[in-house]
């Protein structure tokens, strides 16, 4: 289970997150939507401690960490929390000097200290799962954007995280490549992976989400099951945002 309480993040004087609370049951999918600058990505990055939250508590799996504005968190605590989640980046960020296989082995070798043979077998299994078993020895620059992002997903899963975080996983992709990536994410949802996804793909959000959360100005505007949020939004701000998004896609 994932629990976030009173999470805030400020960059200098600018408040990006203003007290986020959320609970995510094991095996469920939360989709986070919202206008750009609403703090969606920052929220995800705070859960992975790529940004250190200013205050609040984050608990994922067995790790729990309370952040305070006046104290830097201990590195061991940060690593322990970070290792509970896997991150899929908008721009993939694959390691260019490693093959697809080596990308998926890296975390297993350095962080989990898995023996090489075992790490390789598991990496092959994960690549097969994202449909790239035949491209295991390719370097990232030899792969299409969609293939790179699928390797990115396999890499995020390679450390057996409690939670998978997706930061706009299809925003950097050509439209014809979006589908293959969404298909992989959909399959993971069906498998019962716990996931948090920031996306602008509303149709996909509706299909895959157990809950949807609209963020604006660093605060939660509305949260609920997709049918409710998309069809019977309670807040005027939600209706306004959805109509803007719909306009854009037609």
């Amino acid at each position, binding site marked *: 289970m994932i629990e976030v309480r009173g999470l805030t993040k400020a960059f200098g004087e600018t408040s990006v997150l203003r007290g986020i609370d959320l609970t995510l049951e094991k095996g469920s999918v939360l989709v986070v939507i919202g206008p750009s600058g609403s703090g969606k990505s920052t929220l995800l990055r705070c859960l*992975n401690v*790529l940004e250190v939250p200013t205050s609040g508590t984050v608990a994922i799996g067995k790790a729990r960490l309370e952040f305070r504005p006046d104290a830097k968190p201990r*590195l061991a605590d940060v*690593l322990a929390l*970070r*290792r509970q989640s*896997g*991150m899929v*980046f908008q*721009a*993939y*960020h*694959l*390691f*260019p*000097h490693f093959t697809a296989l080596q990308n998926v082995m*890296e*975390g297993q070798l*350095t*962080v989990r200290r898995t023996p090489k043979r075992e790490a390789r077998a598991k990496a092959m299994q994960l690549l097969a799962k994202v449909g790239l078993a035949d491209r295991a020895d390719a*370097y*990232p*620059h030899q792969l299409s954007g969609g293939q*790179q992002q699928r390797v990115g997903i396999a*890499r*995020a899963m*390679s*450390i057996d995280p409690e939670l998978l975080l997706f930061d706009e996983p299809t925003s950097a992709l050509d439209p014809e490549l979006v589908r293959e990536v969404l298909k992989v994410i959909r399959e993971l949802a069906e498998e019962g992976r716990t996931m948090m996804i920031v996306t602008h793909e509303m149709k996909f959000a509706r299909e895959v989400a157990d809950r949807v959360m609209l963020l604006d100005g660093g605060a939660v505007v509305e949260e609920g099951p997709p049918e409710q949020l998309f069809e019977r939004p309670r807040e005027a701000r939600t209706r306004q945002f959805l109509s803007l998004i719909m306009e854009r896609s037609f």
Partner: protein
Amino acid sequence: MSDQSERLLHIFTDSFLPLLRAGIAFTVPLTLISFALGLALALLTALARLSEFRPLAWVAGFYVWIIRGTPLLLQLFIIFYGLPSLGILIDAFPAAVIGFTLSVGAYGSEIIRAAIVSIPKGQWEAAYALGETRLQALRRIILPQAARVSVPPLSNSFISLVKDTSLAATVTVTELFQKGQQITAAVYEPLLVYSEVGLIYLIFCTVLAALQRQLERYFDRYSSV
């Protein structure tokens, strides 16, 4: 063939082996040892300058400032002729190695620092997201990519160093250039002998440039994304 040109030919052939020997016995080891040690020093200095621990960054910055701001010839003189006043006596060859190592360390650190900084931030984040520590990310992800970026400018430093080792002549190391001076003093044909010295430097540098191409080809197996 006139007597004069026959004499020149003799001088050329007679001095070729002694010059080559001086090059192989002194110029080459001086270059290789200084560059290897200098590279290690350069890496440590670059990391120190990028460190969040300010005093370390400051010490490294001070060292680079001193070495880059004064002539290499002067530094060699201080090490070999100056330090004995403090009771520190260093033989000619190690004194030259120290001088060249400090030089490679300072200039090389700027190359390596720039290469590390040029690796996109996303690479650090991807490594951190897997749970790697800063040291693991540096060793496994950042430095291998920085090495690729550094090969051309570091090769430049390496080739410069081959020629800079001629400065060791001034602290009594009988390397290639010093040997040329000795032969010139005996036969008094400066144009011929110094040209021959130049030819041998050219041979060394050509071999090194070929090695650089091999290294670049190795790194070309991937392209940065």
